[in-house]
């Protein structure tokens, strides 16, 4: 008997900042739209377990997309992208899920993202509360940990965009983010996905992750969770955005909810989905109840 995952993949054309992008997305399920955003330098494959989880897809239409330059979303055709350095900005990060939502005709979807996608969940709750009924920040915070921010883009490019270093090392570097309790098969899968990234893309994404996302206390305090509920989940072993950093954000956002996740790291969705879903499913049940 042939075995398939219940996932369908398609390409959609999105125009962002005047450029047309051919964007790949996968989806599964029916119900409340749930857009899921991947981490810096990776792609939507990170969400394969969510897409295959019937307890999620019974009530949610899960849509995992690859940002342009990531996964199966090629660089834009007709743009001389090889003549410019790739960098991800906050405006562009917010524009892609918004454009995807418009193109697919989604009605106030939920957005869940991890790492830079987690920071994005916070930015969307602040800037686009009318578009989303809720956002789920996985490893999100006001900003990333200062020790890493202080490295600077030059240091980041030396490690992650260096012709002396092949992209296997980007995967290897992710070990710093991963819990020792995560099954090794999953660790290797995360590293594989990172090793597949395009040249300079991970480093360019980190512009948003470390610098463009930098929310003030006042902006966080102004997030209106009655319009767009903000949930936060952060792994105990994440040095880039530790539970302490997410908790600082949670204390500022009235009505938000935050759970630290024991024995999980920066990539909880892939590191150990059976453990991650113990935190995710109650959140999704709450969103469903509010529908």
């Amino acid at each position, binding site marked *: 008997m042939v075995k398939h995952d219940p996932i369908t993949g398609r390409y959609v054309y999105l125009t962002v900042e005047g450029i047309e992008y051919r964007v790949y997305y996968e989806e599964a399920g029916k119900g409340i739209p749930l857009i899921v955003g991947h981490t810096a330098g990776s792609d939507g494959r990170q969400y394969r377990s969510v897409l295959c989880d019937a307890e999620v897809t019974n009530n949610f239409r899960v849509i995992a997309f690859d940002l342009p330059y990531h996964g199966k979303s090629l660089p834009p055709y007709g743009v001389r992208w090889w003549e410019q350095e790739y960098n991800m900005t906050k405006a562009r990060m917010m524009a892609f899920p918004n454009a995807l939502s418009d193109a697919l005709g989604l009605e106030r979807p939920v957005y869940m993202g991890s790492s830079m996608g987690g920071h994005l969940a916070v930015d969307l709750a602040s800037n686009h509360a009318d578009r989303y009924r809720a956002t789920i920040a996985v490893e999100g915070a006001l900003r990333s940990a200062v*020790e*890493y921010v202080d490295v600077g883009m030059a*240091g980041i490019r*030396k*490690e992650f965009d*260096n012709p*002396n*270093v*092949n992209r*296997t*090392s980007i*995967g*290897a*570097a992710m*070990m*710093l*983010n*991963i*819990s*020792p*309790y995560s099954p090794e098969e999953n660790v290797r899968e995360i590293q594989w996905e990172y090793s597949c990234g395009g040249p300079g893309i991970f480093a360019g994404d980190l512009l948003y992750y470390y610098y463009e996302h930098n929310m003030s206390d006042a902006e966080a305090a102004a997030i209106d969770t009655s319009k767009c509920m903000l949930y936060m989940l952060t792994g*105990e*072993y994440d*040095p880039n955005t*530790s539970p302490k950093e997410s908790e600082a954000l949670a204390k500022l956002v009235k009505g938000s909810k935050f759970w630290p996740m024991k024995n999980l*790291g920066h990539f909880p969705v892939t590191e150990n989905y059976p453990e991650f879903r113990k935190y995710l499913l109650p959140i999704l049940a709450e969103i469903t109840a509010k529908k």
Partner: protein
Amino acid sequence: MSIEANAFAEAARNDFEFTRETRYLNGTIKVDFGSAVWALNFVGGALASVTDGAKIDDRDCKIVVGGTAEQWNMLLEPKPKPFYQCIQSAAVKHGMRISTTNESFAYLPGLNRMTTLLRQLQNGRA
């Protein structure tokens, strides 16, 4: 830390991943354990010898990693506490050190594997 240099050398030479991830490396990886210093000497990608590295200047090494004996013990726990999961996170969060040469980044997969082998030896699972 009570690992014998010879035991590490044997484990490393017999380990597929370590030998693959150190391919083409020429030069020395200095590993400073606080109580002892090893020089892992590579020729053409092969671990030629493990010698006393105490008198080798960092500038003569391709890669340098180090920490106190206590930090290494934390790093080599079977399930280390947060941010001792690898040398890089332990450096940023707990004060261990790792050089930032091109080779340090290029051979990071090998350094991760070295940590795994040391962890196995430390915990009697080699």
